[in-house]
């Protein structure tokens, strides 16, 4: 606790320092092109968003995983099974399945499980990673109850560029990390290639306090390997015709370690996936037509030699989308369209081939003046299972006082469809499940002052009532079966403070994000569960606090992050819990600048204070460990620029 306070006080000092110069980063893309070519999520989601640009992360944290990026830069809870193990997001008191991850507008949540594994997603694969807090189903569809993570590239500029960034890193426990990002563009074509490789033996030492003698032991059977490639192409056919296409291939192999309470694990999991998409944008005088489609194919192999389990799962996900955006004058935008999605899977636990098919129609209407913006979003989804209810949302943003204080309010209805496992898994699967249905509302205040510079402060309060909450529960016959068993009330507060300070050769950037989320069961439809009414849901921390501080002087950079995760209950009657913990990471970086090949070398210390902690009960986590690497940028000549050598 003391360490946490110390770090916060340190950050507070910087956050309130006087004599400041504001240096807000501005994107060179004009607002107009974002309005025209930007995604629906960017334009209409509304609410509070945290934009995490991977390239602006210090070299030491560049192109890692989405789980790492989010856990050290936001106050959402990442439920991780350990380094390299699966990691899922929980935001605003929801479970992982209530948080959608969108890649170029397509949900990459597994249709079978309903959730996305963030430990497998490289954070450098897209230019921008935006965390939209709160529910936004009317805009983003299924599973957008707690938050939406949007992975997308910035609107292409079609200016000549040729840059390749290489990262190579090695550290404790056989940690090996490599990434190559290459961006090439001319007036008509833009290409972005991301190659990534991560591997670790993960054989760290830990104290096994679940054993009688509390021995220090080496983590066993926890190695992992993850590599892949993401390729994006953007073509400008002419001023009014744009075509884009991309593919993302990935392979992950991991040993699944046993709990501390058990002996060595013996199971391995291999996942491979190929995700492809293509899109076409046609610009008219006052409107834009956007047609796109995607096909995802995923394989999963689970092998346990010791117990002779061998399972193979294959699933497909197809998407089709047509969207029409109309600009009526300078103030009105109307955006309407239709989205089709079909998920199919064929495995023995489904006793053959099963599918989930949805078609959604949507309409977004936005009215915007210089200081005010009102947005109405409507969506109705139809499916081959029980249909979700009609989802509307209304959001209002406005400036309250002299561009210093603005506010934001949003209310709407969100939904989350049952996963294919919920529907079809044998035994238990329940094809008559209804989608989870949530009414949510939120209000935010944003304090921002550029001259003189003060910290940017955001405070949000939210409330969400979820009905038809799906839970697997043993039935009187003993078989686990999912049912729409609960009503859940999630409420809370989020606050963030961001501050940057630039003086001569010094630069400070600091941020604090904190969240309080109370998520409790208000009603159950199974009397044996009544004891859980009014109790916090399991594995949802009530308190989260994340702080970061970057100090640079000339070519030196020190970056410190600390995240505090509050207590989490492990039993639904709150009879057992895990202790809170602080996790700090530190990196030191030195860059060598030259025009052709700027490079930086870095050294980082993860888990700086060697905290012994558990994210999930009895899953060992590594103590302090170190890593060092190099990042090189190659600025290669482009055709339009003459470089004198």
């Amino acid at each position: 606790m003391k360490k946490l306070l110390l770090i916060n006080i340190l950050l507070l000092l910087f956050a309130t320092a006087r004599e400041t110069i504001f240096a807000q980063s501005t994107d060179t893309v004009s607002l107009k092109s974002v309005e025209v070519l930007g995604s629906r999520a960017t334009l209409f989601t509304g609410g509070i968003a945290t934009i995490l640009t991977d390239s602006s992360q210090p070299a030491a944290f560049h192109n890692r995983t989405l789980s790492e990026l989010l856990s050290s830069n936001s106050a959402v809870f990442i439920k991780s099974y350990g380094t390299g193990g699966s990691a899922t997001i929980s935001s605003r008191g929801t479970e992982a399945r209530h948080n959608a991850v969108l890649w170029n507008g397509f949900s990459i949540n597994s249709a079978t499980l309903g959730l996305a594994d963030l430990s497998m997603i490289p954070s450098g694969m897209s230019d921008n990673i935006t965390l939209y807090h709160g529910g936004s189903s009317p805009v983003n569809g299924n599973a957008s109850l707690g938050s939406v993570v949007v992975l997308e590239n910035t609107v292409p500029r079609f200016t000549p560029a040729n840059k390749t960034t290489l990262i190579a890193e090695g550290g404790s426990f056989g940690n090996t990390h490599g990434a190559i990002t290459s961006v090439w563009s001319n007036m008509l074509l833009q290409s972005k290639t991301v190659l990534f490789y991560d591997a670790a033996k993960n054989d760290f030492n830990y104290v096994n306090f679940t054993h009688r003698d509390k021995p220090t032991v080496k983590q066993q059977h926890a190695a992992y390997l993850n590599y892949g490639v993401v390729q994006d192409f953007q073509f400008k056919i002419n001023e009014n015709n744009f075509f884009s296409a991309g593919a993302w291939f990935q392979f992950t192999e991991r040993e699944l370690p046993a709990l501390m309470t058990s002996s060595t694990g013996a199971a391995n999991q291999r996942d491979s996936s190929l995700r492809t998409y293509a899109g076409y944008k046609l610009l008219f005088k006052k409107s834009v037509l956007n047609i796109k489609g995607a096909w995802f194919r995923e394989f999963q192999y689970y092998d346990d030699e010791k117990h002779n389990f061998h399972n193979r799962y294959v699933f497909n996900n197809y998407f089709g989308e047509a969207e029409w955006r109309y600009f009526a004058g300078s103030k009105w935008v109307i955006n309407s369209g239709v989205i089709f999605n079909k998920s199919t899977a064929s495995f023995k636990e489904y006793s053959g081939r099963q599918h989930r098919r949805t078609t959604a129609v949507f309409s977004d209407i936005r009215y915007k003046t210089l200081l005010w913006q009102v947005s109405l979003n409507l969506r109705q989804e139809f499916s081959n299972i029980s249909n979700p209810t009609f989802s509307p949302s209304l959001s209002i943003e406005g400036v309250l006082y002299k561009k210093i204080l603005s506010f934001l309010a949003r209310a709407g209805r969100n939904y989350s469809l049952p996963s294919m496992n919920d529907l079809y898994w044998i035994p238990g699967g329940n094809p008559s499940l209804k989608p989870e249905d949530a009414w949510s509302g939120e209000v935010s205040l944003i304090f921002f002052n550029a001259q003189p510079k003060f910290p940017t402060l955001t405070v949000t309060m939210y409330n969400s009532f979820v009905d038809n909450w799906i839970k697997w529960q043993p039935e009187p016959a003993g078989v686990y079966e999912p049912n729409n068993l609960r009503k859940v009330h999630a409420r809370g507060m989020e606050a963030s403070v961001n501050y940057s300070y630039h003086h001569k050769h010094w630069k400070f950037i600091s941020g604090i994000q904190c969240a309080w989320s109370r998520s409790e069961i208000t009603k159950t439809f199974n009397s044996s569960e009544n004891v859980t009414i009014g109790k916090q849901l399991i594995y949802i921390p009530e308190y989260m606090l994340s702080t970061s501080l970057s100090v640079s002087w000339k070519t030196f950079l020190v970056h410190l992050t600390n995240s505090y995760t509050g207590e989490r209950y492990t039993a639904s009657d709150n009879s057992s819990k895990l202790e809170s913990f602080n996790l700090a990471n530190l990196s030191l970086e030195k860059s060598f600048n030259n025009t052709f090949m700027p490079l930086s070398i870095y050294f980082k210390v993860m888990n700086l204070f060697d905290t012994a902690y558990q994210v999930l009960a009895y899953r060992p986590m590594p103590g302090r460990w170190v890593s060092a690497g190099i990042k090189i940028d190659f600025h290669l000549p482009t055709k339009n620029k003459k470089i004198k050598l």
Partner: protein
Amino acid sequence: MKKLSLNLSLTLLLFTMVLVTSCDKDEPESDTPVVLTTTGVYVINEGSFGSGNSSISFLNVTNNIMSNNVFETINGFPLGDVAQSMTLHKEKAYLAVNNSQKIEVVNGTTFSSIQTISGFQGPRHFVGVGTKGYVCDWFADDVKVLDLNTNTITGSIPVGSGPEMALVSGTKLFVVNVGGFGMDSTVSVIDLGTDAVIATLQVGINPNSIVSDASGKLWILCGGSTGPDYTGGTADDIAGSLWKINPFNYDIEKQLTMGQFHHPAKLQINKNTNELFYLLGSDGYTGKVIKMAAVPGQLSATPFVNKNFYGLGIDKNSGMIYGAYVPGFTQNGFVFRYGTGGGLLDSMEVGIAPNGFVFQ
């Protein structure tokens, strides 16, 4: 304005920090002191598979006070993942912790840890015979032999598929093979002198529990099968059965087949060993309490206690019926007690997923 804004931001910032820090009370953990007596009942709570949260509860029957989590409270480390059963033998208790692949040995009076024996794949049940111990190792398809002086594994005896429970009768050990993830229908008979299998008896599908009655005859309860997909109630469902066997010449004296989709479990016998009790349900794990007289030994599907339990015990002293109730595997379970006539006496909260009882 400048000052005001700064103050406002500072105040809000401090407020936020106070909010976060003040609510994280570093309060000391208070563990309820455990008083173990010689007249009490241990409750084995297996916990949720893969969560490492099994525990032991102890009921002091003189004052009816239930103490939960006694193993961890006394020993300072958690019991492990899926405690399957507990056996008292020569002032010691042996706890079979299935998914932690170990046997915990504790003092039978103080419950303080003596040793952890590892080297198993899925221990289900311990039986002590003098200075030797026998452990049914479900995943290994064998019975491990232990030297109880050194608490080490000295040998293993291959048996059928998924040995679940063992019972000593005379100079023999009868091991029911529940079938693992598949099916088996045998009882392995081990000679305690040579530690070798001397006979393999054919009974019904998936024998899961065994008791010995007043006449020394063995009763073997077979769960049947809910089919390879575990759904039950379908064409591949095989009903359970109850068998009575002579332990000397292995004659089958009774073979009683249950009704369609009936899957019994957890066979128990009363103090006078003339009344059998078991759980009858359709999933193979839970069921309502059925009571049956060993003589004449006729099946009935009418529940003696009409509530679905996951574990069952009959108090050897009072004759009370103990039912272990599991409302879910992420919340604490309950013990319901019934008098010898089947009337409900009381109920108490225990750990997660209680599956059985040991009467001291």
